[in-house]
């Protein structure tokens, strides 16, 4: 079976996520865009697994989900803490560590 529609969808999702990370200021939205990129790559991996007829891609996708889950926990905790201290969830406000 041809996997190109899935890959095209994956590329679209990844691009949306990418643009979101680069342009949005709200930390929650940036975070969601990161998740979108991860899941886009998951979709690509699963597609390749299906096309090649083996389980390698699925296993990789599984690992990505595990890492993403862990990342969400840590990331949300950091965002919460920053929001509590600075009353803001804008990523541009947290820019003290610079030249």
């Amino acid at each position, binding site marked *: 079976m041809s996997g190109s529609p899935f890959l095209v969808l994956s590329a679209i999702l990844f691009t949306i996520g990418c643009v979101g990370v680069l342009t949005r200021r709200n930390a929650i939205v940036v975070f969601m865009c990161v998740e979108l990129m991860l899941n886009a790559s998951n979709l690509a991996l699963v597609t390749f697994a299906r096309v090649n007829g083996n389980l390698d891609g699925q296993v990789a996708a599984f690992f990505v989900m595990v890492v993403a889950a862990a990342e969400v926990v840590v990331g949300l905790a950091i965002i919460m803490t920053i929001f509590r201290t600075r009353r803001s969830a804008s990523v541009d406000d947290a*820019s003290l*560590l610079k030249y």
Partner: protein
Amino acid sequence: MSIPLAASAPVIDPSPASGVFNLLWVVIALPALGAALILLLGNRRTSGFAHLLGCATVLGSFVISLVLFVTLLGRDESDRQVGQVVYNWVDAGSFHAPFGLLYDQLSALFLLLITGVGSLIHIYSVGYMEHDARRARFFGYLNLFVAAMLTLVLGDNYLVLFLGWEGVGLASYLLIGFWQHKPSAAVAAKKAFVVNRVGDIGMALGTMLFFATFGTVSFAGISAAADRADDLTMTFLGLLLLLAACGKSAQVPLQSWLLDAMEGPTPVSALIHAATMVTAGVYLVVRSNFVFDHTELAQTAVVVVGAVTLLWGAIIGCAKDDIKKALAGSTMSQIGYMMLAAGLGPAGYAFAIFHLLTHGFFKANLFLGAGSVMHAMDDDVDMRHYGALSKAVPVTFLTFAIGYLAIIGIPPFAGFWSKDKIIEAAFGDNLVVGLATLVGAGITAFYMSRVMLMTYFGRKRWEEGVHPHESPKVMTIPLMVLAALSALGGLLIFGDWIVDWLAPVVGPEPELHLGVPTIVLTLVVLVVVLVGVAVAWLTVGRHEVPRTAPAKVSFATRAARADLYGDAFNEGVLMRPGDRFVEGLVVFDDRGVDAFVDGTASSFRGMSGTFRRLQTGYVRSYALSLLGGAVLVVLALLAVNIA
């Protein structure tokens, strides 16, 4: 130069020390121990006994030297070289240099001279330095000097010799600058040290070349292999050793330190000029006869250096009003005689050593006598302030007179025999060299007579408030002993004793070929000497000596007063260009090296100032660079795959 090269110089082949010769190392150890004790405990703690300890150690060494010498005399002629290895000093790969001592006919004579005259100078110093607060330290330095010189003449290889060589340089530096509160003394000490370093280059390079050529630095090993070395190497070795000898023995062109070295206390001058230091160069040349016998060029160089120096020193001696500087000029000149004789090869080695011994006696006598006069005149050294001292200091006068007769070469005093032999050998070699020694003898007679006349005769020209008095016994007794030695030192040549004695070390003396009977030459020399004395009487003795040096004098006198412009030459040719070169290096360092280093640093600082702007603190800019990097990697992969 028509020196017949010896087929081969004698090989040094010592037998292991046995019996009394096991005490050889003690000769060095005693004064070294004295120096260590006095210098480590310090001036204050040792001031009560340092002078006694200093004298005792050197006298002890003298007694041992005497016992060794008598034992050596009793031995068979073929068995008169004794070696002793004190310990294994350097042992690295193929390089072996034990701390080995060699006691043979040559070092035996040196041992007696150094410890004998050294003891007398030590005893004299007890009186001379009595009122100096740092007398203890002075004796520590004196002991160090003697220990270093003994190491120099007893070492059985060039490395041990070098150790003593440097030790002598250090001790002379310390003693010349003993009155370091006087800037002139500090400068003189530095000058002596620096000029000696120039000579030491020759010594160090020579030692290295010995090792590179022969694989050993021991006298025994080199003298055995000397025949196999090529002539060019031998010439280089000879010239390097000559450079070393010039530095220590104050020969032209490294003569300039000797006159300034008079800044030290007078016993130091006596020690430097008679028993140690300046004799080291002559010892080096004679000891290295196995090198010089193979290289006519280096021998010629030694003769030329000796001839130039003997005239140079004599001319300087003529114009000096400072009694010590006049004597210093004469030392330079007399060492020139020895160098010249040593350069004549087997024809002169024995006479060089003979003159060295007699000179050791009469020059110590003269210097200590000069010290006694200075003592009487409240440390005034200007002979123009002396005059008519023969009555005031009779013992000093009589002993000084014997030294004077010895140095100008009036029979039967010691200098006559030794100088006459050198002049004969010089004429046997070359007419020009012979004439140089003859003229030198005449000038010597002139300037020494001048010293005598200005100091002891004529009218009183004393400074006000000066009341000359004879020195204490502790100073006059060494003078008497030295005067006796100056009178009787010539006995060594009777029956050619010293020539036969040294023959196993330096080779047998070849037959002398003179156009005339030697007695004629001797008479000619005596006439020249008497002419010198007469000229001195006519120019100095007959007239009233002015109390200040006349300013309107001939060019020759001005030149001699300025040490024949030796210092001016060094300053103009070596020091000023050296200064300018160093200044150039400083400019290069500031404008070249520093500019490059500073430029690199500041360009990096500028770049980092630019690049750190990348750290904006905004997450999205970091994300963008991350994305850009990822895109670049993808593009690179694509490019590789497509191509």
